[in-house]
């Protein structure tokens, strides 16, 4: 049975990340960042630097001999809980988890070098597969011809801030492409989620280095880790929404009572609390299954997404409603959480897709 608790080290890690985010990533900062000119890129570079160069967090999943921390998905999940709680505009999930996992599946010196670069945090990577893609689902690729790539990919999260893209091609291989080079155009799209925006990428004879012949396995591994650990981000989002809403409804008075004393609201918040409690168990289980490389990891990842995604959305929607008019404003941060939660519910496969995956995995076949 998996270990569903947090170790003391994990709690210490959480405190450190939370303290940093409290200082550097309050809601006003996140909002200002989201409205910054596109030229500045989608990410908070200073915050990213503090998390990666300062705390070494980008290398948690990278073995020590490649310059990483040699930690596990359990620690990365704790980091994601805190990043979710702050809707932090940093490419942690996309670079330090998904791209890193895809590279870990590649082997070879090219991938090793890139892993060290990503672990150091100075290089940001992104897997060039649409964010909505579920692990195991078909994905778009581009044409490989005479050592160069041609074609267009859409829906690539955090591509606008990435230095390196990991690109699947029609020959079945996965390639590394520098975004700063000739023949690569990254076009940022206006996205529902301001803190993890999408971009389209076009390749016109873009030079590329082969990472592995087996793009499929690498993409699958990256997406599975993304789906599994996204549940921890969703847990962080849901927890923030619940905590803030409880705080607000205790303070806000109407009818000469705190609105949080009305039973209709109390019951809704208690229901949400139960969903959050369940989400924590599902998210811990998924992180632990990946860390232990368990045979149950596919089930654990699908289960976590099937459960956590709707909870995060529900939490954000309840938070907005129970804040009343103020929840509808741009100044109040709840919209950042709703946008992230809703985008997350599509990222790495919807809950419905993960349920379908489970139908296969646990043998509950469709009619």
């Amino acid at each position, binding site marked *: 049975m998996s270990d*569903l608790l947090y170790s003391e080290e994990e709690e210490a890690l959480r405190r450190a990340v939370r303290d940093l985010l409290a200082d550097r990533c309050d809601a006003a900062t996140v909002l200002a960042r989201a409205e910054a000119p596109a030229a500045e890129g989608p990410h908070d570079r200073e915050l990213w630097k503090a998390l990666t160069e300062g705390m070494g967090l980008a290398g948690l999943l990278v073995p020590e001999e490649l310059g990483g921390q040699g930690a596990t998905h359990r620690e990365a999940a704790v980091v994601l809980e805190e990043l979710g709680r702050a809707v932090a505009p940093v490419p942690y999930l996309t670079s330090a988890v998904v791209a890193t996992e895809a590279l870990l599946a590649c082997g070879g010196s090219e991938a090793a070098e890139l892993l060290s670069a990503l672990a150091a945090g100075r290089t940001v990577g992104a897997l060039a597969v649409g964010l909505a893609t579920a692990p195991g689902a078909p994905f778009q690729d581009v044409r490989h011809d005479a050592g160069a790539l041609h074609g267009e990919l859409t829906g690539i999260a955090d591509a606008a801030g990435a230095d390196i893209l990991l690109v699947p091609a029609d020959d079945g291989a996965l390639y590394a492409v520098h975004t700063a080079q000739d023949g690569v155009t990254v076009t940022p799209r206006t996205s529902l989620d301001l803190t993890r925006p999408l971009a389209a990428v076009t390749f016109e004879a873009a030079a590329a280095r082969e990472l592995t012949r087996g793009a499929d396995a690498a993409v699958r591994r990256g997406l599975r880790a993304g789906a599994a650990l996204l549940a921890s981000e969703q847990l962080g989002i849901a927890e923030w929404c619940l905590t803030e809403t409880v705080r607000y409804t205790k303070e806000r008075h109407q009818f000469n009572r705190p609105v949080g004393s009305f*039973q209709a609201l109390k019951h809704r918040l208690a229901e949400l609390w139960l969903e959050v409690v369940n989400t924590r168990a599902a998210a811990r289980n998924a992180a632990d299954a990946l860390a232990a490389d368990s045979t149950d990891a596919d089930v654990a990842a699908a289960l976590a997404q099937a459960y956590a995604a709707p909870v995060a959305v529900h939490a954000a929607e309840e938070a907005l409603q129970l804040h009343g008019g103020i929840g509808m404003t741009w100044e109040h941060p709840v919209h950042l959480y709703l946008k992230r939660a809703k985008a997350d519910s599509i990222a790495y496969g919807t809950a419905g897709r993960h349920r379908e995956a489970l139908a296969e995995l646990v043998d509950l076949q469709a*009619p």
Partner: protein
Amino acid sequence: MIDAGELRTRTRALLEAHPPATTDRADFLKARFDAGLAWVHYPEGLGGLGAPRSLQAVVDAELEAAGAPDNDPRRIGIGLGMAAPTVLGFGTEEQKQRFLRPLWTGEEVWCQLFSEPGAGSDLAALGTRAVRDAESGDWVVNGQKVWTSSAHTARWAILIARTDPDLPKHRGITYFVCDMTDPGVEVRPLRQITGEAEFNEVFLTDVRVPDAHRLGEVGEGWKVAQTTLMNERVSIGGMRIPREGGMIGPVAKAWRDRPELRTHDLHQRLLKLWVDAEVARLTGERLRQQLVAGQPGPEGSGMKLGFARLNQEISGLEVELLGEEGLLYDDWTMRRPELVDFVGREAGYRYLRSKGNSIEGGTSEVLLNIVAERVLGLPAEPRTDKDVAWKDLAR
């Protein structure tokens, strides 16, 4: 402090002295109690060794491997989960010596005389009276209790009764152990929605309870009852079950075995409930791990809420999945079961019986209030009855 190794040694010694294969079940259970291996966290001489609660698993695993008989915890659930911790917490030495051993071995079944026709969720409003007889010092109890599970098999009852109607409702209550063989105790079956009668009405007419059977101080009954109710809720979550170990098991099996029953709509609902059931199982497991690690979280408060809903949704789906078969029911005969046997019966029974899961042991509405107030710290409901003498409350 006793460690796992020593417990293992003691368990093996017990097994050697009383080989399960040749020892009478009751004798084995008594010997186990006397060896302090019944509930290892209880004090020595009372079935335990004062060991950490988490080490019980060591003993249980050894005994299970050896095929030792168990004390049928489901049949004696109220005694085990609620009466025992209350007796331990508030009983006199004599009471502990008298009650705990036969309770644990299952020789004596317990029931809970708490709810009354006029006092369910608002338990502290209860009206059953206990009046002290000046001559004998006994308490004379009159009143009516209701929904009393297992009253028909019980030897003893935990009973709360009003001893001072002039005080506000929470303050005039006293806690007793009631002898169910007293001639003043009349148990009448209440037939349930399932056809059987698992619970009862209990009429108490001049029942004499010796003062030696009082648990805790006079007027402190509400405080004592809190211990009982807290343990009731804790004992519900935190059990280790395998994947598909709950009600989802039979539905998943039917789905696999009988492809002709499948529809797309049912498939969607089944998958969602499978996910919910598996996640609830993990939450229970997490609660268990927290208890073992000595860091109990508030998760327990939500467990029963979650299970009640799941049981109801899953069993509802199961009846539908079975189609024509779901239109049938296994047996409406009026029976007096000793325990609730969800898996031993069919889908229709599960559907009907699980309706009680959101009522018994505190309704889901009341549990939501508890989570909102005690876990989330939201303001309590306005209370108009707190400082009013019980006798002056509207009824």
